[in-house]
């Protein structure tokens, strides 16, 4: 009797400290795996010759190559009003002229309309002063974000509002593009959209003019949308599934048209998710690098291209300065977003999902969806199929040679060689480990960022740091902060291998859990938790019994993303796996690349694609069960 009571007390005590302990553990992991290693690199941006200094940052900000017209403003702040005035005088006529041409062209559409609009646009854009490498990088990220929204939002609508066979599978597969190594996407895109690719073959067959997409800004934006539109789709679809159906029914019963109900009731509930998708897309594409050089080329270089070059040259001061400025942009946007999210999601909703419509039938809406399906087929399915085709195509036609290479490597690999099977196994194990670690981390941080006020918003901003720091810098930080080790009382402590990889992946993945869960947690009726606490439940008990079940759709979505991050992560994995058998599928793809043939790498990439697709179907099935 007495024994069981102390047992219960002990477990209550454990429950009471569970949340603070989890918070501490999360903070410790973040310090070891992120803030410390990254700090060892970024500190170079604010020191010169060992003393604190802002000059590395100012050097970048004074260089017109990096910041264009801003450089003059940094060099001579007093000259800004005169400079703006001069620009206004010389350019305002151009801008007005460009804008004035638009109504005429639109009102009287004819053959020249498109050309006239394009010319007006060029004049309009050209009238603004260039903002250098940073300006271009932000510009392409903005276009990529708009394209990802345009391609991703209809997908969220279809997946959240309609029922059709294969819906769940398609929803699962939307995570696939996100994990693909850039070389695979480059191979798929060149094959699909090149001069001799199926798109141009089709246009030629239809007697239409062909399109020159490669090596242009358009193809970069398209590739970025390929990576990120599915992200938008998943995040927004998850939010759409947790819209409170009763609010829509109420609006409808009060006489609102379906469109009106959507605009006034549904759209405000979706807006935070849309903004989340846009924010993440912008951050990711702002720091995009290999895909830009592979499909667009150096003429369309981003800041990250220069950052990578500086790291290669070991010009670490300038590298750190560029990285800090990139991070400031990303975190600044995150802060602005969190302010908005605070305002948008406070509420007392309880989710009761909207019913899905059957997709079968024929009306204007569904015809538009057919058009959307065609676009999806072109932008997503065609490159994916092209990747798979490339892995079975040699210079002289169909071949199984590249897969034979993988098989042979699997069975007869020499000791230092990479085995495909080991890579697959490691990727899956690390993925599951990451999921298990990042979900509690994300939950704890979502709770911490939930309170109102600047402090918790800053926690929210800090929580996004893994996304906002350049992967090149994270890799370098891991190398010098962890892999090389530090001397502690004469013993060298070094970190590496499978456990470190899972920890690094979890650190890179938990922001997805936070961003998927925090808005839902914020929207919960606080009184539920408060009554549970008043009835004697510990904070941990209230979290597990009340909040977690209610935000399960967000957790499931975040967990799937965490798994995806782990599968696709390259920068830190390749460094922590060095010298051990802990390599993953993307690392294997990279190692099979040679200056002679892409074949084995595309075969390994296709294995990655198929394994990932299959695991997402499984994960979503399991996650879906929790959602019901």
């Amino acid at each position, binding site marked *: 009797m007495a024994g069981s009571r102390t047992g219960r007390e002990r477990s209550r005590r454990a429950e009471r400290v569970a949340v603070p302990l989890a918070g501490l553990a999360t903070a410790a992991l973040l310090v070891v795996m992120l803030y410390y290693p990254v700090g060892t690199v970024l500190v170079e941006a604010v020191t010169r010759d060992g003393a604190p200094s802002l000059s590395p940052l100012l050097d970048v900000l004074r260089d017109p190559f990096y910041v264009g017209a801003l450089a003059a403003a940094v060099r001579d702040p007093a000259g800004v009003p005169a400079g703006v005035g001069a620009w206004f005088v010389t350019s305002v006529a151009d801008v007005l002229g460009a804008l004035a041409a638009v109504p005429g062209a639109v009102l009287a559409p004819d053959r020249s309309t498109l050309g006239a609009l394009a010319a007006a646009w060029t004049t309009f854009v050209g009238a603004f002063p260039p903002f250098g*490498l940073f300006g271009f990088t932000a510009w392409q990220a903005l276009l990529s974000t708009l394209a990802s929204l345009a391609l991703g939002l209809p997908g969220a609508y279809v997946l959240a509002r309609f029922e059709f066979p294969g819906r769940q599978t398609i929803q699962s597969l939307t995570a696939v593009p996100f994990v693909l190594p850039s070389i695979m996407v480059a191979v798929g895109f060149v094959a699909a959209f090149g001069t001799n690719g199926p798109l141009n073959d089709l246009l030629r067959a239809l007697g239409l003019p062909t399109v020159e997409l490669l090596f242009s800004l358009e193809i970069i934006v398209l590739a970025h949308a390929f990576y990120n539109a599915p992200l938008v789709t998943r995040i927004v679809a998850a939010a759409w599934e947790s819209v409170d159906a009763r609010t829509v029914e109420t609006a409808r019963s009060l006489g609102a048209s379906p469109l009106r109900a959507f605009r006034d009731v549904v759209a405000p509930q979706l807006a935070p998710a849309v903004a989340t998708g846009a924010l993440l897309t912008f951050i990711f594409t702002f720091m995009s690098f290999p895909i830009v*050089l592979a499909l667009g*080329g150096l*003429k369309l270089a981003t800041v990250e291209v220069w950052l990578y070059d500086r790291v290669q040259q070991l010009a670490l001061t300038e590298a750190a300065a560029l990285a800090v400025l990139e991070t400031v942009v990303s975190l600044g946007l995150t802060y602005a977003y969190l302010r908005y999210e605070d305002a948008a999601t406070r509420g007392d909703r309880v989710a009761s999902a909207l019913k899905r419509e059957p997709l079968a039938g024929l009306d204007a809406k569904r015809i538009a969806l057919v058009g959307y399906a065609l676009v999806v087929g072109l932008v997503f399915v065609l490159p994916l199929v092209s990747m798979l085709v490339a892995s079975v195509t040699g210079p002289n036609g169909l071949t199984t040679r590249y897969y034979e290479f993988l098989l042979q490597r699997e069975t007869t690999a020499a000791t230092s060689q990479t085995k495909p099977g080991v890579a697959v196994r490691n990727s899956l194990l690390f993925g599951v480990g990451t999921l298990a670690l990042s979900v509690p981390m994300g939950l704890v941080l979502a709770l911490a960022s939930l309170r109102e006020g600047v402090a918790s918003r800053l926690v929210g901003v800090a929580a996004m740091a893994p996304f906002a720091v350049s992967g090149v810098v994270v*890799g370098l930080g891991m190398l010098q902060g962890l892999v090389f080790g530090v001397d502690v009382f004469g013993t*060298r402590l070094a970190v590496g291998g499978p456990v470190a990889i899972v920890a690094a992946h979890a650190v890179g993945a938990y922001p997805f859990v936070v961003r998927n869960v925090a808005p839902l947690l914020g929207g919960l009726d606080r009184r539920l938790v408060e009554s549970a606490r008043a009835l004697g439940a510990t904070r941990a008990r209230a979290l597990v019994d009340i909040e977690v079940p209610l935000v399960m759709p967000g957790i499931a979505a975040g967990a799937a993303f965490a798994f995806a991050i782990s599968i696709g992560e390259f920068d830190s994995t390749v460094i922590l796996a060095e010298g051990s058998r802990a390599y993953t599928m993307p690392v294997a793809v990279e190692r*099979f690349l040679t200056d002679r043939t892409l074949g084995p790498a595309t075969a390994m990439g296709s294995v990655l694609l198929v394994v990932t697709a299959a695991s997402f179907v499984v994960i979503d099935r399991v996650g879906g069960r929790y959602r019901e």
Partner: protein
Amino acid sequence: MDSKDAERTDGNGDRSRRAYLATVGSVGAAALAGCTGDAGDGSTPTETATDGTVTETATATPTEASLSGTLTVATYPSWVESDGAAGPWLKEQFEAEYPDATVEYVTPDSAVNYFIRRKQQDAPIDADAYVGLNVDQLLRVDSELDEPLFAQVGGELSNGDAVRDGLRFDPQERAVPYDTGYISLVFDESAVDRPGTFDDLTTEPWADSLIVQNAQSSATGRAFLLWTVKQFGADGYLDYWRDLDSNGITVLGNWDDAYNAYSEGEKPMVVSYSTDQVYANRYDQDMTRHQVAFLNDQGYANPEGMAVFADSEKRALATEFMDFMLTAEAQGEIAVRNVQFPAIPAEQANLPEEFARYAKIPDEPVTFTYEELKGNLDGWIEDWAREIAQG
């Protein structure tokens, strides 16, 4: 020049002595090699080398004990991973020759920078030899580190003299070349005429035809850029690139990106290697799309070297490994497997007959020396990259 460099870098007495002996050794061996080379055509490089016993004064004569244990060789991934890679073959052969030795490869993602950073942070190097060193990396090693990262071994190698003189890129004889490539253009003869000169590339028939690699991120692209600097001078190469750019070129990230786009028929010319047909022939490809063009009858030589880490405790085993890589058999095999040219004269390496037919050698190989690149390389690349990126 060699001895001056040796004195400059080696601070402490012990190393100076060794370096001095190594230098003497290399001079002695070179002289001997010259003699035997003139004396009779029948002498193989291995025999020449055994004559140069002077080298053995530099280190203790290798004994059974010093030639055992694990030799850790750092290299780039495709040395180990590519289909029919040279690395595993070499490991097997070397271990057969030295049964008490084991070769282990490591392939750090950041290549030589990995070891430079280790050295800068006083972390143990944990590797004995490096395979795949080029002159750019050596320049970086020397500009970043005061302490030596690699040891001076030139004179200690019995087979070292066989290496062709034009390929030696390290004045301090730390890095010893084991193979070389020549940068050239590969083109599709059904789509464009063979370009003969650099100036051709700026004219209408070759407009919008060429894919090159980004010199910042690709060794191939860097070699092509240096070739243009060699041709037009440090004052003129940017003008040439402006002409080239206005005639239409595409600058992609690395060799894979560029060659993939070329293979898909996006453009009819790409910067690549003059051994392109060796690979094409291996898979019976149509040679129409694998034509090799040397501009101005030149090709830019890009030798790859190997070196021993100064901190290695397995120096005897490591130099034995390097020597092994320079034997006639290994040179032929490395060339074929790596699709590169041997570092020793081709007639001395065991090369299959087909190799000479498909591996093209430029009339005039050109390259920059270590001294010419020193202090200039990064600036040339940066100026070029800013020119292109602004475009």
